[in-house]
């Protein structure tokens, strides 16, 4: 009896102490303070400073420059290179996303069968994911290079003219999409595999009883239940594809001219080679906006689909 009393009063005491403290403690802000500080210092502050630079004619190194209002923005919208580069960026972002998802889903469906070679295949397809995109770019460079490239070795073997795909502006953006897809299709595959394995067999058995065909089962059961995996894959791939940088540097360096430049590499080029930092920053703002709009609309669209399904 005495014991319970004391225990109770102690508890009451701590309770009131906690209440007094609650105002400051309720957010537990000190737990995310280090994260906020790092992200602010290394991302948000530099980004905001970048926006400020987009209103200047800074050349990227001089200590002096002028504020010129929206001139760089006007220039950006009038510049044909802007649209070429935006087009490439969308191709890299959306093209790789579509390919990675279709092929990744295909691979996942195949490997969802109990095959003896399943682990081997999965391992090999996933392997490029862990290799630096820069190195992957170089490896594919050995493949596509005009002089002594592996592809042309085959062409020559069959008595055909060697081709130079990396310098052809009509082709090389697609090569970049291909290499990026090849490298990251493993991620999509794994995520789809996990999604497939979480679908209960009962659904398929029910469909079998209804006499559904394989395609009907895929459409009515598999796809809707995979919606969460699809959302993750699409959003991840779009953001990755739109920011593409290393692979382009390794394969074409954005060339010839600006033909295969993405917004990342273009911006890089403007900053450092063209002495056009103000303009580069303006392109950076456009890029952030494009990524924001596309990834957010994809996210919202697919989340809605998830709910419907």
């Amino acid at each position, binding site marked *: 009896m005495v014991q319970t009393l004391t225990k109770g009063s102690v508890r009451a005491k701590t309770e009131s102490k906690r209440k007094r403290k609650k105002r400051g403690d309720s957010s537990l802000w000190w737990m995310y303070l280090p994260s906020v500080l790092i992200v602010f210092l290394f991302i948000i502050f530099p980004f905001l400073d970048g926006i400020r630079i987009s209103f200047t004619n800074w050349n990227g190194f001089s200590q002096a420059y002028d504020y010129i209002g929206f001139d760089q923005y006007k220039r950006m919208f009038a510049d044909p290179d802007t649209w070429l580069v935006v087009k490439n960026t969308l191709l890299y972002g959306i093209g790789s996303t579509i390919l990675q998802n279709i092929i990744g889903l295909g691979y996942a469906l195949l490997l969802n069968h109990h095959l003896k070679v399943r682990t081997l295949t999965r391992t090999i397809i996933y392997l490029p994911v862990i290799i630096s995109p820069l190195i992957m770019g170089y490896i594919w460079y050995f493949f596509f290079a005009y002089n002594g490239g592996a592809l042309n070795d085959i062409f020559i073997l069959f008595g055909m003219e*060697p081709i130079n795909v990396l310098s052809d502006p009509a082709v090389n953006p697609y090569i970049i999409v291909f290499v990026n897809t090849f490298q990251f299709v493993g991620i999509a595959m794994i995520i789809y595999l996990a999604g497939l394995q979480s679908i209960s067999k009962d659904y398929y058995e029910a469909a079998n009883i209804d006499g559904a065909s394989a395609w009907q089962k895929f459409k009515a059961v598999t796809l809707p239940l995979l919606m969460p995996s699809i959302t993750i894959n699409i959003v991840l791939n779009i953001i990755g594809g739109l920011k593409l940088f290393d692979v382009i540097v390794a394969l074409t360096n954005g060339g010839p001219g600006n033909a295969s430049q993405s917004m990342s590499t273009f911006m890089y080029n403007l900053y450092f080679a*063209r002495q056009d930092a103000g303009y580069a920053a303006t392109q950076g703002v456009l890029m952030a906006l494009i990524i924001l709009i596309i990834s957010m609309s994809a996210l919202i669209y697919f989340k809605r689909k998830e709910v419907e399904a």
Partner: protein
Amino acid sequence: MKKTIGISVLSISAMMAIAGCGGSGSGGEGQVKLTLMSTATTKADQDIFKEIVKDFEKENPDIDIEDSYPSDGYEDLARVKMAANDLPDLFDTHGWATSRYSEYTEDLSSMDWASRLDPAMEPILTDEDGKLHAYPINQALDGVSYNKTLLDEYGIEVPATFDEFIAALEEVKEKSNGEVVPLWLGGADKSQFGQYFDQFATPLLITDEENSYEEELLDGSFDWSNYTYLAEKLKEMNDKELLNKDVLTAQVTMGPELLAQNKVAFVMLNGSVGREVTGLNPDVQMGTMPVPPIHEGDSPSWIGGERHTLAVANNSEYKEEAKQFIEYIAQPEVAKKFAEGTSLPDALTDVEADNYFAEFYKQYEGTQIQPYFDRLYLPSGMWDPMGATGQELVAGTLTPEQVSDKMSQEYTRLRSE
């Protein structure tokens, strides 16, 4: 109270995690660490730099030089470093000593070697106030280099005019049945196209009296349609397959190897290329010629100026030590070694360096030396568009007229900065 302790424990452990890997390594106590960044690009050039740095460190054990060679990325890095006022203690000014880099250099005019400086170098590296911005390690004498063995074999004369040059290229193609690349450019690197435009702009727009646009270029009134000729000719060469097929993806470093295999006749590479090629294949001799005239009645010219330089950053912590290094490499025997290692003429009056191309320089003795076109007549920052428009022209995304338009736009923008 507990919370504060918690936070401090956390932050301390975080600091320890970071600090455990914080030390940037090399160098014992009491050593001065100098940073050096050079534009040396080929392996031969970098090797001689490294060798000389090592020799210096041996003589001066208290100084440790951290040398780096970002090659293609040099200009990019240098710009970022300027923006942050963080240039290395010793850096290369690659033609921009008195303009782009002038705010960041230390005056070297009171150093010993200044009095031994080649008179041709002095005006390029000194500004109106008499400030000497950098030490020139060697001089460029750029023209067009060629595989002499191959030309001799085909009995092709060294061209004396631009038209003869194109004719020689066609002859190479014909006589080799298309096996030999007449003019090879390592165009994965834009600067190879830049080199073409920059060198041939001199005979087109500067040296011929009747076609000289020096004033217009300098006062901003230049009409860029006068530049279109070079783009047209480049396009013509490409259309006639006088350039390598992989001109847009070939790496510059492949050049010497192809020359050594007798697969290439002419290149826009200079200096150490000769030594490198003969080193790879002793049976191949290289030759060099000045840039041929384009207009009738004009004479050829070497494109000259400082090649590798070293300037001392004026905010360096170790100016004295940096100067000590320059003093070291300005000694006649080291300067000779440097010049020979890079296969370029030295820039001091009391040094006699042997040079791979010496006989050719002698053969063309008296030929005028012109500065790099873009360094003198164009605003800083034109080098990239010059090369990039060349790439786009060859890729077929720009017409020769559009090349000139683009150059004109960039010229106007960069002048207004």
